[in-house]
Each structure stands twice: as structure tokens, then as C-alpha cells.
């Protein structure tokens, strides 16, 4: 009897486990499909504006990287562009100064540089908490900015880094003037990153990080070191941001000083919060909406751009503090609950 019960229970648990696994995979596939569909739609609808779409892809990687530290670990930073810009300059310098013109190697260089920048920034930033930590993040991005500005023989200073040349991708696909190759390269990079990050955020490590966000004391009582985990997450985040920077360098073949700026960091934070922190879908949604909005407004009236961003930010804080995706998600959950309730009655 008790043996039977045990077998039943084991089977029950196995079934539950299987359901969970299926649920995760289903959500991954939906996310994957949504990105592919949106990317294809963009390609079909805006064939003349692939440069903008590729820029959205690069910034999406920056926003995802910010989500890792801010959304999943609870570290507020206004200096994430330091990691993004490091990736962009690394990829650009490889080509412009070292003649490394293979786009894949350049991207790898960007990823590595981003990871190293992430390591450096985390070692500095994790010395403090709260306001001093935030100030450190701002000081860091200004420091990177100043450094790139002054090292003009390497970076081109305020004129930007130019002279980036590229081999065809895999030796086959030329980076054409219309940006077709760059766009597909960007979509592939984002899809790959998305899948890897989906796995990351529900891995044991991802769960540990969510724990750190909520209660570091509790995490220590589990025998884990929050500091070490945060440094690790920063390195990963740097790699993702670096990939975004490299994509921007590869696709535009210039690197502007702006890619290392405080404004770029702040805008990335706005996009993340607009979409919703702590979910990869939220970060992507926020990026797309913000960038299209930016394109629209700055075409209509560039003078008001900053005012609009400010107003948008205030509106999000006041009316949708969970971001668009978070608000949609909880609305959906409410509807489903009500529906379930009715179905039971």
C-alpha cells in the first residue's frame, strides 16, 4: 500500500516536472517565434529603414544586459553604456587599427571587451550601496567617456572612430549598403542571446540572483556569496552589452563617442522600465517602442525629444510602474483568474 502510494507520488511528481518543463519550452518557443515574426515584419514593412531596425537590435542587447543587473539583481545603474561602448570600440578598433576584419571575430572582441568592462565596473560599483553606488555608476560612464575622448589616436575622439572595414560574413555575405546582411546578422545575434539568457534566468544562478535582489542576508544564510554572484552577473551582462556594441560598430562602421555616454545609459534604463524590469520580453518590448517613438518624434520635432522622454518616464512611473509588459501580464493574469472562477461556477 505505502509502496504503491510512493510510486504514485513519484509518477505524480514526474508528471508535474514534465508539465513545468513543457511550460518553459513553450514560452521559449513563443518568444523565439515572436522575435522572428517581428523581425520579418520589420524587414517587409521598412525595407528602406534597415539601419534603424539594426540599431534597435543593438540597443535591445544593451537593454537586455541592463535587465540582467537591474531587473534580476536589483542593482540600479546609470552607467550601463560603459559596457556597450567598450564593446563597440573594441570591435571597431580591431578592424580600424589591427586589420581584423572578420565580423565574427570583431563581435567576439566586442563581447570580451564588454565582459572585461563589466568586471571592472562591478568591482568598483559593488564597493558601495544605494546612492553612492548610483553615483559610482555615473562617474564610471563619464570616466569611460572622457578616456575615449582623450585617447583620440585610438578612438577618433569626438569625431568618432571611422575606417572600419569588414569582410563578408562567413566569406559569403557582403555587408551591403542597404544593410541587409547587418540586419540578418543582428537578428541572429539577438535570437541567440535571447535563448541563452532565457536559460540563464531560470538556471540555479539566475534564481540565486533573484534571491539577492530580494534579500542578500537570506542568500548569505544559504551559504552563497552575493558579492561573487553579482560580479559574475556583471561579467555576463558586460558580454551581452558588448555584443550589442559590436553589432552597432559592425552595422554602421563607425563608433561615436555617444555610445559611451550617460544619456545612452539613461535612455537604456528608460526603455527597460518602459517595457518592465525583470523580464526579457519587457526589455525587448520597451526597446522597440522607445526607439520607434524616438524616430518618430525626432523626425517631427527634434527640439522636444528630451521633453517627451521626460514626460514618458514620469507617466510610466505614475501610471504603469511595472512597465508595459508587466502591466499587460498582470492584466492577463487577472482576466484568466476571473475566467477560471467563472468556469468553476
Amino acid at each position, binding site marked *: 500500500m505505502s509502496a504503491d502510494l510512493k510510486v504514485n507520488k513519484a509518477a505524480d511528481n514526474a508528471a508535474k516536472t514534465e508539465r513545468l518543463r513543457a511550460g518553459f519550452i513553450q514560452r521559449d518557443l513563443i518568444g523565439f517565434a515572436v522575435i522572428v515574426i517581428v523581425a520579418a515584419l520589420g524587414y517587409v514593412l521598412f525595407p528602406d529603414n534597415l539601419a534603424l531596425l539594426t540599431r534597435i537590435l543593438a540597443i535591445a542587447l544593451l537593454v537586455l544586459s541592463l535587465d540582467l543587473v*537591474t531587473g534580476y539583481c536589483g542593482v*540600479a545603474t*546609470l552607467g550601463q553604456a560603459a559596457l556597450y561602448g567598450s564593446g563597440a570600440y573594441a570591435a571597431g578598433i580591431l578592424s580600424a587599427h589591427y586589420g581584423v576584419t572578420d565580423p565574427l571575430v570583431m563581435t567576439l572582441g566586442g563581447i570580451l571587451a564588454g565582459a572585461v568592462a563589466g568586471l571592472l565596473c562591478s568591482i*568598483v560599483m559593488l*564597493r*558601495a*550601496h*544605494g*546612492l*553612492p553606488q*548610483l*553615483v*559610482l555608476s*555615473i*562617474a*564610471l560612464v*563619464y*570616466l569611460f567617456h*572622457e*578616456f575615449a575622448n*582623450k585617447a583620440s589616436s585610438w578612438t577618433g575622439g569626438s569625431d568618432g572612430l571611422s575606417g572600419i572595414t569588414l569582410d563578408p560574413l562567413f566569406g559569403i555575405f557582403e555587408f551591403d549598403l542597404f544593410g541587409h546582411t547587418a540586419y540578418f546578422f543582428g537578428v541572429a545575434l539577438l535570437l541567440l542571446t535571447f535563448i541563452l539568457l532565457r536559460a540563464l534566468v531560470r538556471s540555479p544562478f539566475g534564481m540565486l540572483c533573484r534571491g539577492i535582489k530580494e534579500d542578500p542576508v537570506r542568500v548569505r544564510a544559504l551559504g552563497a556569496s552575493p558579492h561573487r554572484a553579482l560580479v559574475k552577473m556583471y561579467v555576463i551582462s558586460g558580454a551581452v552589452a558588448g555584443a550589442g556594441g559590436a553589432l552597432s560598430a559592425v552595422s554602421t562602421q563607425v563608433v561615436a563617442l555617444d555610445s559611451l555616454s*550617460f*544619456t545612452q545609459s*539613461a535612455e537604456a*534604463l*528608460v526603455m527597460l*522600465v518602459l517595457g518592465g*524590469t525583470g523580464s526579457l520580453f519587457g526589455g525587448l518590448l520597451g526597446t522597440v517602442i522607445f526607439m520607434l517613438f524616438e524616430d518618430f518624434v525626432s523626425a517631427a520635432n527634434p*527640439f*522636444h*525629444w*528630451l*521633453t*517627451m*522622454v*521626460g*514626460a*514618458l*518616464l*514620469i507617466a*510610466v*512611473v*505614475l501610471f504603469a*510602474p511595472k512597465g508595459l509588459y508587466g502591466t499587460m501580464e498582470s492584466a492577463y493574469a487577472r482576466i484568466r483568474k476571473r475566467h477560471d472562477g467563472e468556469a468553476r461556477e
Partner: protein
Amino acid sequence: MQTVFSIAVDALAYGMVLFVISIGLSVTMGLMRVVNLAHGGFAMIGGYIASYVARDLGLGYALAIIAAVVFTILIAIPIERLLYRRIYGQPELTQVLMTIGITFCIIGIANFTMGPTLKTIPLAPALQGSADIGFRTIPIHRLFAIVCGLAVALGLWYAIEKTNFGIKLRASVDNAAMAAALGVRTEIVYAVSFAVAVGLAALGGVVGAEFLPVEPYYALRYMVTFLVVVSVGGAGSIPGALAACLLLGAIDTTGRYLMPEFGEFFFYLAVIAVICIFPRGLAGRAK
């Protein structure tokens, strides 16, 4: 020797300007626990108003200062009521976002209404030129900035240590819930402190326009400088803020004089070093 002396005078004057602008930020952060990134925006508004009054209307420097303080406070009151009220006690990230939003709006609106160019504030004739102090001459405006800083420091010290309001303020900083239970109307303490903070920012914006020129990106450009003062000095501490301002003023000014090419680079490096060495600020209490 002459260089050392001018650096010292400039550093002191610049430090005092930083102090006048940042001390309000420090007190409100200590009091209301709001990470207010828009504080520099109010200093900038003060500068614009003073420029308008003194240059465009030609009404004189003294009146320009008064108008700047009064009108900046008037502008800030509805912003406090409508926006800041919502973020008291909220998580840090929310406060950062809201106040960055406010900063962006201030910049955008300033850019639109006043144009992207630099605005000057003509000094009163009495403040122009140099004063002879025996062995050296000092630009009078520098002296004026130093006197302003000292006056603000002394005034705040007196208000906080010696007046009834100061007692309520300190009680609210220490433990808002307890102060409220003892009958202190904390919302009034908050509102008054916020107004004083904004007024001081405006004053600093006007007096410091020689060091921090008034233009739309002022609010963003010096945001980190003001925040650094607070995080280095420790929120709510007047001596801490004063020490931080003098230190940062000295670093920044010396950097500009000796290595104009790398001035900002060393400034940010110094900021990072100071925060890393004193993660809780110079006057920060160990927990």
C-alpha cells in the same frame, strides 16, 4: 606662487558654490530619502531667471538673485506636490526614474524657451573688478561667492541647531514616524525643507554662474557633481557636505589649472576613489 594662490581662491570659491547648491539636496535626501537627480535643474532655472531679470530686463543683480530664488520656489512647489509626493518612500529605482524624467523635461523646456545658447548674468558693478587684500588681489566675485557659502553654512547651522524648526527637522531626519507620533507635522517640515533646498539651489545657480555657466544641459552636466557632494559628504550632514565641496572643488580646480586636457578625467577618477574609500561618505555613520 601667484598660481597657487589663484588656484586656492578659485577652489575655495568654487567649493562654496557647490556647497550652496548641494546642501539643499543633502538635507532633503537625508530627510525625505529621495534620490533627487533633478536638483541641478532647479539651480539652472534660478540661473535662467536671474539672467532674464538682470540682462533682459536690466533690473540689477540684487533683484535678479531675489527673483531667481522666489520664482524657482514658486515653480518647484507644484512639482513637489504633484510628482515628488508620489515617490516618497518608494524604491530607489522609481525615484531615479521620476527625477531623471523631471530633469529631461526641465532641459527640454529650457532648450525650447531659452534657446541652446549660454546665458550670462551681468554682475553688479560692486562685484566686478578685484579687491586688494594687501599682498594679493582677489576678484571680488570670488570673495562674494565665498561669503555666500559661509553665510549659508552659518545660517543653516543656526537654523538646524538653534531653532524650534531645526529641532523638528532633526527629529524627522532621525525617525520620521517617531517625530510624527510626537506631534511634529512632518509634511510641513518636508515642504519647508524642500522649498529651502530649491531656493538655495537657485541662489547657488546664480552666484555660481561664473563657474557653472547657465545652458540647457546644465542640469545633466553637473548632476553627478552635486550627487557626488551628497554621497561623499553623507546625506544630511552639513559639515560632511562642506568638507566634500571643498575637497571636490580643490580637485576639480587644480585639475583644470594644471591639466586642462585631462581635468574631467581626474575629477571622475577622484570621485570614484573617494567613494570607494568612504562608501558611506566622509561623515557617514558606520552601521
